């Protein structure tokens, strides 16, 4: 019986766990409960992946009303894969949170933190799993509102302006998405994605359809920080509490990319998106610009979190580049990079949280000499940085390999060169950090620093180890990503 309700429980459990987190008056119990729920979500995502990995599609009708009258969840290999990423990161970050927030968030706000994290998780999972265009908007609102709250909890007062900036940009993005969905409804009379997909091919010449497409692409572009709509991202990631940067930095933009893919391929159909609207010629230059520009800016940052945030903008560029190549290898590269980038950025931000816990801040100059003082933390950082660069045996290599293959397949060799150049730029910006940590002495007047506690090191190393494991044995991620890419191109609509 449980199995048949699994798609609903995947979202309903964290959704209802949020008010319960708020009602539990003891902070520690609230944390234990939240961690337990995050593991439960991860377990459910694993079960869902196992059910759909061979191409099956699960449907769930809310309220027992058949679509298009009611709201439907539909799980195929693509959503299950993204659910796995989001809930997996949550299952690591939630247990990590307790120690990390002790020094970053006042005790009176701990319950609010866990409630908001739970809402954010539920919203992101819901956006991923839903088969209804309006339901996606509702869950987008839940995840957005809670992420504005989470970012504003940062210690630095600039977290408030960062959060406000994100709120304004995010709201414009959400409004654009709503306008897009509204126009689609006016044209077709339906909100169900599969139903929309069956009606859209007949409407190809419609201007309303083109406007809906434009609004949705720009709306999701804002949410996923597509260049030049990325301006909210660096501040948001830099000033949020460490655990929040790790969670939002490795999941929120991924889910937005997933949603964009879902609309481009499933709702509008690859034929309309790429042959009629030619969206790849919009995405490709923007992807190139964001890879070059963000990598360049990252080289000159003093704060490591901000540096990693700019690097995220560049990584999003890779994902968009993979989409813009419009071939199965490129799309597989994009999907692999969703998974792999979540692992590397999640791991790196968790490591930074451990540094912030001991040192107090994460500027490049503050970590001088930490290579000796915090060997395990800095070791994790080095492995994460290697993965970010794309060194073989790490996950970063796998996704870049697929992207390079895809560019060669298309014969776009300048893009191949671009990927290699930007990897070298990643060497430059990560090397600055590693050099400071290992080859500079700790200033004489700096206080003594100990290795980070195990409650931070274990979660951080879990993600870092995953970088190595899936870099060596990448079968799970590549099978799922290839399966999803083939499904999107296969024309099988949900």
């Amino acid at each position, binding site marked *: 019986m449980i199995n048949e309700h699994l798609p609903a429980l995947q979202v309903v459990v964290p959704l209802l766990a949020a008010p319960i987190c708020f009602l539990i008056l003891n902070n520690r119990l609230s944390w234990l409960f939240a961690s337990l729920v995050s593991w439960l979500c991860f377990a459910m995502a694993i079960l869902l992946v196992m059910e759909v990995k061979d191409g099956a599609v699960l449907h769930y009708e809310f*309220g027992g009303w058949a679509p298009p009258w009611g709201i439907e969840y539909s799980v195929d290999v693509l959503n299950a894969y993204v659910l796995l990423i989001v809930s997996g990161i949550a299952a690591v970050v939630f247990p990590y949170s307790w120690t990390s927030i002790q020094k970053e968030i006042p005790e009176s706000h701990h319950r609010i933190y866990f409630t*908001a994290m739970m809402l954010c998780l539920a919203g992101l999972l819901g956006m991923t799993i839903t088969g209804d265009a309006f339901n996606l908007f509702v869950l987008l609102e839940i995840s957005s509102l809670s992420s504005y709250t989470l970012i504003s909890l940062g210690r630095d007062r600039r977290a408030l302006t960062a959060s406000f900036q994100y709120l304004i940009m995010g709201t414009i993005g959400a409004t654009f998405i709503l306008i897009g969905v509204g126009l689609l409804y006016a044209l077709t009379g339906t909100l169900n994605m599969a139903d929309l997909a069956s009606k859209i091919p007949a409407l190809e010449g419609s201007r309303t359809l083109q406007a809906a497409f434009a609004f949705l692409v720009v709306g999701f572009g804002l949410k996923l920080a597509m260049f030049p709509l990325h301006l909210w991202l660096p501040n948001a990631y830099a000033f949020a509490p460490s655990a929040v940067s790790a969670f939002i930095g490795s999941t929120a933009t991924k889910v937005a990319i997933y949603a964009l893919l879902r609309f481009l391929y499933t709702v509008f159909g690859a034929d309309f998106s790429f042959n009629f609207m030619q969206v790849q010629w919009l995405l490709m230059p923007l992807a190139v610009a964001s890879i070059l520009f963000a990598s360049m800016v990252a080289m000159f940052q003093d704060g490591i979190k901000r540096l990693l945030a700019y690097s995220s903008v560049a990584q999003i560029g890779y994902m968009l580049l993979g989409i813009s190549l419009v071939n199965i290898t490129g799309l597989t590269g994009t999907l692999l990079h969703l998974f792999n980038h979540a692992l590397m950025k999640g791991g790196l931000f968790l490591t930074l949280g451990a540094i912030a816990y001991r040192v107090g801040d994460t500027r490049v100059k503050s970590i001088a000499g930490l290579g000796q003082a915090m060997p395990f933390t800095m070791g994790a950082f080095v492995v994460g940085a290697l993965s970010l660069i794309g060194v073989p045996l790490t996950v970063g290599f796998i996704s870049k390999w697929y992207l390079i293959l895809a560019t060669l397949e298309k014969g776009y060799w300048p893009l191949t060169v671009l990927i290699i150049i930007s990897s070298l730029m990643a060497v430059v910006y990560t090397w600055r950090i590693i050099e400071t940590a290992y080859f500079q002495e700790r200033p004489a007047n700096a206080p003594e620093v100990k290795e980070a506690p195990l409650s931070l090191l274990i979660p951080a190393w879990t993600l870092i180890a995953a970088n190595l494991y899936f870099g060596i044995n990448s079968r799970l991620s590549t099978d799922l990503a290839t399966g999803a890419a083939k499904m999107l191109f296969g024309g099988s609509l949900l």
Partner: protein
Amino acid sequence: MSAINLLIDIVLLTMLVFTTIAIVRSRSLFAIVMLSGIYSLLSANIFVVLDAVDVAFTEAAVGAGISTVLMLATIGITGYEQKKRRSISRITPLIVVFITGAVLVYGTLDMPAFTNPSNPVHEHVAPRFIEQSPTEVGIPNMVTSVLASYRGYDTMGEVIVVFAALIGVLSLLGIREKKTDPVYTEPPPRPILQVMAKFMIPFIILFALYVQFHGDFGPGGGFQAGVIFSVAIILYTLTFSQQDAMDLVPPWVLKRLAALGVLIYGGTGVVSLLKGGNFLDYNVLAHDPIHGQHYGILIIEFGVGLTVACVMILIFFAFISRGDKNP
């Protein structure tokens, strides 16, 4: 569409445009808040002309009513005038706005006209809502049928959005109880206002209850009722004092009730799961599916009303407890 409707639409939309221009040009925050209230009221009128009375009711209660009050509480903290700011370039925003507007105009030129009965909107999902909902869901107001049953999961999401907003406000502002504040002084009594408020509050609450429980039959439901109920408490706060109101409805109780409202809604779904149906399938709640639908809608609307009322009061408390002037 009759000619008179067209005329009303043109007049209302023109007023909407002028209100927007006035909002953009004004520097007085007080005037902007008032004009925003007017904007919402005009929109509510347009919804009435479009025969969307439930939407109009919500827009009037939320947009023109409670948002205006909350914005006034906000400028109680920030001051009434917009600060002079460095002159920033207006070119980029203007280009963005122009392009967005151009795309909207381009996109809506061949949009199906909403008066055409053979529109996709009228021919696809709507006929079943109109023809079947009286027998499937069994309540006369089909808007409530769609919101609470066919698309009940979205409505649960909206309640959680309201709850998420509360979490945001509590994390940013918190609620200061003045009792512990040494510089706090009791406000002077305002007998005329207080007597009038005492006279009005019972009727406001009664109206809120009517809107709550009559939502199955006419326009209304939990969202509007929750807002109206909160207005009663807000009126009490404004005419008496913040401390009196917090003694009457203590914030810690409201916080629990706000979370409880969400759980009542979600719990209904969980019960229908346990009884062998899908999540939020009210049919299985009672022996007769129609009765089940009735019970389900009644319970979830109560959850909605509870959460919305508590959240609105709490957000209002959070704003005014930050202001240095006692209302």
